[in-house]
């Protein structure tokens, strides 16, 4: 494999969990909620994937991860939607809860030795024809199945928000809740539904870290991806296609370390590890002042 296609392959692979998590967050934010607990949802999904995969194989892992993500999102929803509590504090607490619970359960269930390094994982599946395209073909179309789910979800969320009645209701809740309510939309239900969806997609994002990338679980392995995904939503201007593209940019930033290592540059590895976080700051500084968030987004006027 050439360096360029290896770089592209790593870009798509690392972009997958970011895109999945950010697509869920787009739906949530278009309903007027900001969920800082996304980080905790991804972590719950990752741990769920470990538990599921050790007992019921890789696909069991994905199923349990989705369940765990939805559960974490539902806890957030009780506080943020039902109680109308401060979304940022509730979200921070949900992330803290996920860190504590997954860490405790991990050590309780798998002991000091940690999980086996080889749990069932899902390898790449080449799509006939498309994967033979030069350079980008194998990078985009010879990936684990969860990456294809991210492609499909991008298209589906785009179509759903733009072309369906319920998608319109979702956007109305985020822009003009009073008008939506007058039109008979149940605001709380829409927001709860959006959070359940983001729980599922965030859980899937966590599962992809464990089952399609690392092949094992580590404490705090979400490593800020939930927060980066929230930044990606801003960079993608709250649009599914924009979010997919922004995810690829961040995937590329992470994949840069493989590329530079392949080129034999002797730079400190911490520089590459820090790169996605620095890029988030730089990108937000360039974009955040010039885009418009959903009007009713969480008392947050200056994202």
């Amino acid at each position, binding site marked *: 494999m050439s360096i360029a296609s290896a770089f592209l392959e790593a870009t798509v692979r690392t972009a997958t969990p970011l895109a999945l998590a950010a697509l869920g967050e787009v739906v949530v934010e278009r309903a007027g909620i900001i969920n800082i607990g996304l980080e905790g949802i991804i972590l719950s999904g990752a741990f769920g994937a470990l538990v599921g995969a050790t007992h019921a194989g890789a696909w069991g892992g994905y199923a349990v991860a989705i369940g765990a993500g939805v559960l974490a999102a539902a806890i957030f929803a009780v506080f943020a939607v039902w109680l109308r509590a401060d979304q*940022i504090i509730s979200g921070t607490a949900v992330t*803290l809860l996920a860190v*504590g619970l997954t860490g*405790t359960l991990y050590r309780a269930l798998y002991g000091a030795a940690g999980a086996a390094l080889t749990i069932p994982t899902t390898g790449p599946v080449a799509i006939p024809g498309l994967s033979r395209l030069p350079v980008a073909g194998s990078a985009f179309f010879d990936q684990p199945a969860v990456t294809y789910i991210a492609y499909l979800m991008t298209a589906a969320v785009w179509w759903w928000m733009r072309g369906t009645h319920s998608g319109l209701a979702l956007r109305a809740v985020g822009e003009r809740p009073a008008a939506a309510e007058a039109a008979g939309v149940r605001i709380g239900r829409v927001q709860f539904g959006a959070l359940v969806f983001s729980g599922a997609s965030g859980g899937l994002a966590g599962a992809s870290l464990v089952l399609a990338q690392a092949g094992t679980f580590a404490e705090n392995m979400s490593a800020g991806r939930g927060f980066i995904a929230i930044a990606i939503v801003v960079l993608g201007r709250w649009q599914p296609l924009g979010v997919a593209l922004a995810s690829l940019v961040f995937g590329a930033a992470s994949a840069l370390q493989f590329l530079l290592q392949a080129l034999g540059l002797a730079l400190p590895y911490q520089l590459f590890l820090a790169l996605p976080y620095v890029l988030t700051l730089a990108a937000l500084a360039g974009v955040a002042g010039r885009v418009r968030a959903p009007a009713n987004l969480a*008392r947050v006027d*200056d994202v």
Partner: protein
Amino acid sequence: MRRSQAVAIALVVALTAGTILLLSASGFEVSRALGALVRGSVGSWYAFGSGTLIRATPLILTGLSVAVAFQAGVFNIGAEGQFIVGAVAATGIALSLGTLPSLITIPAMLFGAAIAGGGWASIAAVLRIRFHVLEVISTIMLNFVAAFGVSYLVRGPMQEHTHVYPQTETITGAAQLPRLAAGTRLHLGFLVALAACGIVWAYVRFTASGFRLRTVGANPDAARSAGQIDVTRVTHRAFVFSGALAGVAGAIEVSGVTFALYENISPGYGYTAIAVALLARLDALGVIGTGILFGALEAGATAMQRDAGVPSVMVSVIEACVVLALVALGRARIAGGRSSR
């Protein structure tokens, strides 16, 4: 109490109980664990002084840092990163001033750490004020950058001379905070933390500048139009002030406890600080009590892990449940609304 509140509280109780049940189901002896928790935190004077209060010191200072920021409507969850850069600055100063007396070295470390922490928070302040970047995201990103920065420093330019361990040289005795009494590990930093709380309390309550801080937090638009307050400047000051306090916490940890810079110098103090500040209802003196409470929990949890094998990360569950319970009771909110453009 509303029905939804009752359900939320029940959920918090269920989460706590569920964790305990899960632990006992996976073979831990709950009574032994609780015994260790108590013994390790308040079981003896030694445990209280050298366990609880030592852990409480950074929590009081970072909790104070968060409380100041929240009061001004600044959601700084970057105390973790500001703590880290404070520790880096203090270590750097201590290693380069090695032979000077304590009376010069230690204040220089605290001062340098305050500047470093304030400067680090200032990045998030500029990003919010000039570029409209939400500080929740920017401060967390800066936490990661700080952590990777330390990782680089202790394996690169600041590594100890044998180049074996990922840490710096040990700082000299002149750079170490004196112990408060013989036979305890409790150091002068605890009193510094108490003094900081007193000063901040008086500042917020009795000075015009402190009043402006609270006003901007309560209602930035009213502060601007009715109060003729330069909201931008007050907001920036709140970031810097908050960062400086967290930076000092980092310096005290190096000067009083670790005596060197390590990769994981903070076991998440900056995140626990959020619970410390919220439980104190953002009151500068209240932070002393809640800081000691969480210090006891963390010291107890360390003993629990050592004696009963229960993972100490369980403390995060308790902290999260405390915050969620406060949210359910309607007692946890940051001051006022956020500033509009």
